[in-house]
């Protein structure tokens, strides 16, 4: 397949022509980039902090499989995802992925105690990615990373690099100090809306550093519990964003829940709508039920796709909300819990496949 496919997209005028040219958009690709590669872009004293190894903490939970898939470590001992051509060879070409949203990254620095350091890391990382990765493959798009300790600094960073044509989104860690709807965070949303960038939440550092416990019940014992519980944090953030009026205050803002699970959405919305009918007066700016408020505003990536005992149950579940319009394919490459495109959409209609593999992302990210 041609690696010069995406530059021609701007010449394709109709959405239908674009949809035909893009077979699959992968909305969560973790290229592997280390602090050592981009610390040169950091001013002092942050460069010295990076040199000394200041990094987000780690809960120390044990994943016997390892986070990076062992078969993606190449003969030279380096991860395929650490090289643009490795990513193309192991992910984009075998699966016909025509656009890859590079999520990275360094969003985990939101758990670091020092807001200035975290902002400097994200800023240097974004510059490095724009200069060293985006030019390497026209299929790459960047989700810029910002840290959430100081939302004003995050907003500045979004405005600094958000206009670059290769930048298609903003991504933060879902591990935070507060529910993400609260007004302290609103400057980030204002900046993302202004720059026309969908705003993504990505898990991975829940319970580390200065962030909240990884579950509402506290710190679990094992990685299995921690990983299963990630969805609960996403639920809390979504409920907060709806109730705090984020979708009213920022009418063009789009939120993408990356890797937070899918199957919980419909029953959560039933409960949420029921409560809203009684308690609407506490959130009078919510003039429509929560389930309607998020329509066209909230998207979810598919990985790790849930696997009920009968595949038909997944289909039933996807009929309980507007899955065809809300879901975006994601591989999470090269992590241990990734999904291939054919696996995610197997057994679904051709329309569903097209929407989830490409068309929803084409529209959302303005590809």
């Amino acid at each position: 397949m041609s690696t010069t496919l995406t530059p021609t997209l701007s010449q394709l005028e109709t959405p239908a022509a674009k949809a035909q040219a893009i077979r699959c958009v992968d909305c969560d690709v973790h290229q592997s980039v280390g602090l050592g590669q981009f610390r040169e872009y950091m001013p002092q004293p942050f460069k010295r902090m990076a040199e000394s190894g200041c990094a987000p903490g780690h809960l120390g939970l044990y994943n016997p499989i390892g986070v990076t898939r062992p078969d993606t470590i190449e003969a030279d001992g380096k991860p395929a995802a650490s090289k643009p051509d490795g990513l193309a060879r192991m992910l984009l070409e075998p699966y016909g992925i025509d656009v890859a949203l590079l999520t990275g990254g360094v969003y985990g620095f939101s758990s670091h105690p020092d807001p200035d350091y975290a902002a400097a890391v994200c800023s240097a990382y974004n510059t490095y990615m724009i200069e060293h990765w985006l030019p390497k493959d026209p299929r790459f798009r960047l989700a810029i990373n910002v840290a959430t300790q100081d939302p004003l600094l995050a907003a500045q960073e979004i405005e600094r690099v958000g206009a670059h044509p290769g930048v298609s989104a903003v991504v933060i860690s879902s591990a935070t100090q507060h529910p993400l709807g609260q007004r302290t965070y609103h400057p980030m949303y204002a900046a993302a809306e202004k720059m026309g960038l969908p705003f993504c939440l990505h898990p991975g550092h829940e319970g580390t550093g200065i962030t909240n416990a990884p579950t509402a019940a506290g710190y679990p014992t094992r990685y299995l519990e921690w990983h299963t519980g990630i969805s609960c944090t996403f639920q809390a953030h979504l409920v907060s964003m709806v109730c705090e009026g984020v979708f009213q205050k920022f009418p063009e803002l789009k939120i993408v829940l990356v890797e937070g699970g899918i199957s919980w959405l419909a029953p959560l919305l039933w409960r949420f709508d029921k409560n809203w009918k009684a308690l609407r007066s506490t959130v009078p700016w919510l003039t429509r039920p929560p389930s309607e408020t998020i329509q066209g505003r909230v998207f979810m990536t598919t990985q790790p796709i849930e696997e009920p005992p009968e595949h038909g149950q997944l289909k039933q579940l996807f009929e309980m909300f507007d899955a065809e319009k809300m879901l975006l394919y994601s591989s999470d490459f090269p992590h241990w819990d990734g999904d291939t495109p054919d696996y995610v959409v197997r057994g679904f209609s051709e329309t569903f496949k097209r929407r989830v593999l490409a068309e929803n992302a084409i529209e959302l990210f303005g590809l």
Partner: protein
Amino acid sequence: MTAVSAPTRTKHEVAKAADLPPGARKIVKAGRFQIGVFNVNGQYRAVLNICPHELAPVCKGPVRGTMLPSKVGEYTWGCDGEILSCPWHGWEFNLHDGKSLHDPKCHLKTFEVLVEEGTVFVLV
């Protein structure tokens, strides 16, 4: 009624036995199959290089032991060198019978292995 003859299997050379010591593996093409042949503590085992979950190249995953079923709070290591773990999602398979450790219905396709005059063959 027509007699049905037993399906004939073909011998495919894998490696010299000396080149496949305990703990070693080789992935070979045998007919239409890609097969991983493993020396499991001195016994040769062969499985299809396709994971039944998302069709990953399962034979590229690590081989090790695992924790055996136990009482709450107890950990018992066992099956050392017998458990193949898929490189994508970590599903564990016992190389002796191809069965997964999480669901007896979920298994890898297995093949018979022969050793003749110092050469390892897989029967397909």
